[in-house]
């Protein structure tokens, strides 16, 4: 069965510091992997996705993620965090489910940015 683990519930970083959010997945086939961001009171917005090819993918807002098959990981990174990046981040793995394409989400990592 598919599953996604985000081991960090809450991370605090200083503005301007680098960021890495961890994601590990379990899936029997080649996964489709995603990172979503949720700002307070809002729905989820796609940051980036990996389907195949280059294992380092670039997304919006200066984020990137690297797929490492050997580690079953898809960690999200940003070299310099801005105060507006404070939000909750969800990793997800895509799966085919009865004719639809569903996503299985991790439990999320809340990011706090301090001045």
């Amino acid at each position, binding site marked *: 069965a598919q599953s996604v683990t985000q081991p960090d*519930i809450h991370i605090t970083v200083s503005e301007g510091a680098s960021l890495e959010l961890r994601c590990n997945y379990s899936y029997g086939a080649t996964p489709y992997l995603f990172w979503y961001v949720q700002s307070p009171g809002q729905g989820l917005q796609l940051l980036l*996705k990996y389907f195949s090819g280059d294992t380092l993918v670039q997304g919006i807002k200066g984020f990137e993620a690297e797929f490492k098959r050997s580690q079953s990981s898809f960690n999200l990174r940003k070299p310099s965090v801005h105060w507006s990046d404070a939000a909750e981040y969800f990793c997800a793995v*895509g799966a085919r*489910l009865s004719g*639809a*394409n*569903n996503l299985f989400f991790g439990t999320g990592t809340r990011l706090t940015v301090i001045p």
Partner: protein
Amino acid sequence: DVKVTQSSRYLVKRTGEKVFLECVQDMDHENMFWYRQDPGLGLRLIYFSYDVKMKEKGDIPEGYSVSREKKERFSLILESASTNQTSMYLCASSLGVGELFFGEGSRLTVL
């Protein structure tokens, strides 16, 4: 621009009431989903639909039903609301593999 609209951002209902949560997408997407979001639990799939009048149970369908009479509209129904259904409900749609487009969510409180 892509848009998924949930009709109610905040609702307060009493135990035993019937609750309707409406979701409309303007992207002509085949697939639509209802998720429930709770702190520490992430997003859990309640129901999804891959075509008009088609529906499939997700991970936590108990206490919920859905309706999809038109392609653009997907409704979540709580036949008899209970306090443990107090939550944030997120609707999403997708065309195929991958990206889900989410609405802003409906926060339901059941007293």
